[in-house]
């Protein structure tokens, strides 16, 4: 059953897909080929669906891990420089920036959303990268930079999010929070 399909075909994604694309594609396709799926049952027999599911799992296990994916790509003779760079820029800078800048960036005397934004931009970190790293939604990160405390369900959330944000751009979290709170109260 469709044995020549490579893992990318199985998940119906291009070889340029990012890790997020792979996760989404996996989730979608698992729903399509679940047992008694409306869209699939009349074309495929139960055994075929089982085989397909197995292929999907296999594909996901390999592609969701960047190490195994890389070695799989080599067997397919895919040399995707573009993606490799993209992946690197997706994951590396935050970590490296973190390590390098954690001690180097002193917390400024006054911390507001604007100040945070300029510090972030000086490190060339995008909100998207922070969002991916911390799992905080873009909307909340934007609200932090816009000093909109009303966007959060409670101060507790703002505090937690801001601290994570601060450590991503290399600021000392607790001190940053204290000063940010002061700016908000003023």
């Amino acid at each position, binding site marked *: *059953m*469709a044995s020549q399909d490579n893992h990318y075909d199985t998940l119906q994604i291009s070889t340029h897909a990012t890790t997020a694309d792979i996760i989404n594609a996996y989730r979608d396709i698992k*729903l*399509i080929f679940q047992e008694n799926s*409306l869209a699939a049952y*009349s074309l495929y027999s139960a055994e075929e669906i089982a085989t397909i599911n197995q292929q999907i799992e296999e594909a996901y296990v390999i592609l969701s891990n960047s190490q195994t994916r890389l070695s799989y790509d080599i067997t397919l003779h895919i040399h995707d420089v573009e993606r490799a760079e993209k992946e690197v820029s997706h994951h590396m800078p935050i970590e490296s920036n973190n390590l390098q800048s954690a001690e180097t960036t002193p917390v400024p005397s006054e911390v507001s959303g604007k100040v945070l934004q300029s510090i972030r931009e000086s490190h060339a970190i995008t909100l998207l990268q922070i969002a991916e790293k911390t799992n905080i939604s873009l909307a909340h990160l934007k609200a932090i930079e816009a000093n909109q405390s009303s966007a959060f369900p409670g101060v507790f959330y703002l505090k937690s999010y801001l601290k994570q944000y601060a450590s991503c751009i290399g600021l000392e979290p607790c001190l940053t929070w204290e000063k940010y709170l002061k700016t908000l109260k003023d």
Partner: protein
Amino acid sequence: MTVKNTATTKQRQPLIWAVASGKGGVGKSFVAANLTMAFAAHEKKAVLVDLDLGSANAHTCLGINHPKTTLSQLLRHKNIDINSLVEPSNTPFMGLISGSSDDLDMANLKHFQKLKVMRNLRHLDADFVILDLGAGTGFNTLDFFLYADQGLLTVMPEPTSVENTYRFVKSLLTRQLRSLPKQSHALMNDILIEQKKDYGKIQSFAQFLADMLEKHPEHGKNIQGNLQKLQLNLVVNQMMDPADTKLGDAMQIIFHKYFSLNLNLLGCLHHDVHVTQALKQRQSYYQLFPQSRNAICLHRMAEKVIKTQQIKTNGVVN
């Protein structure tokens, strides 16, 4: 009366859209009629042709009461201009070729009659010609569907409807591939027999195509070329459950995986009791409830189609 020719635009060729579904009652006529309305609302001349031969009722969906002309006249008379059969409606830019008072044997259209209708469809003076086809997988339906520039499949989130849609596409592919040379057919048969031997049953169409490309690349490419001519679109109709929205995307993926066909998801329409209400009042839904979410969806679909078409034609010119 806007549909009648404005002589100057004689050379323009209408874009023909065929609306079909494997199963009856999923809303072909509704989609066809209201999509025609939506095209007209965008000031594109649109003519709906009722090819649900023998059980035509597109005129009711459009709210046209007793059409005076019918498609049968085209077959009965020699040298008749198809444009004279277009029944004007009270909506500008829109017309209908009705089948309401067809001859009673219209359902069994003969081959040469079918060809005559097809030939004449191209002469319609309009931007869009929408064919409302009958349910099922009869030759007439399949041939009109294949003849059209764009095919639109209507499906509703019900096992029977989805099943029959796949069935329709299978019949469609078989019909489309019948024009291949004899030699190809022999090779195709060989591959199917082999699959049966190896797996116990015939595999997916995509698998068949892959085998064909591997073993007989020339013939395989020929088949692939034939398939690329098929322009398939999908409308999911009568959605009731929020989870139903996923059906369109799911079918898109399955079409690619099983048939190796590209399916363009045109849009989704919700179940709405007002459809019956509009029918009872014998008015078109699109006109009676222009602010309903389905009417807005239809409007957007028409917009999408027009835009894609513009890009295509402009691309060719450039």
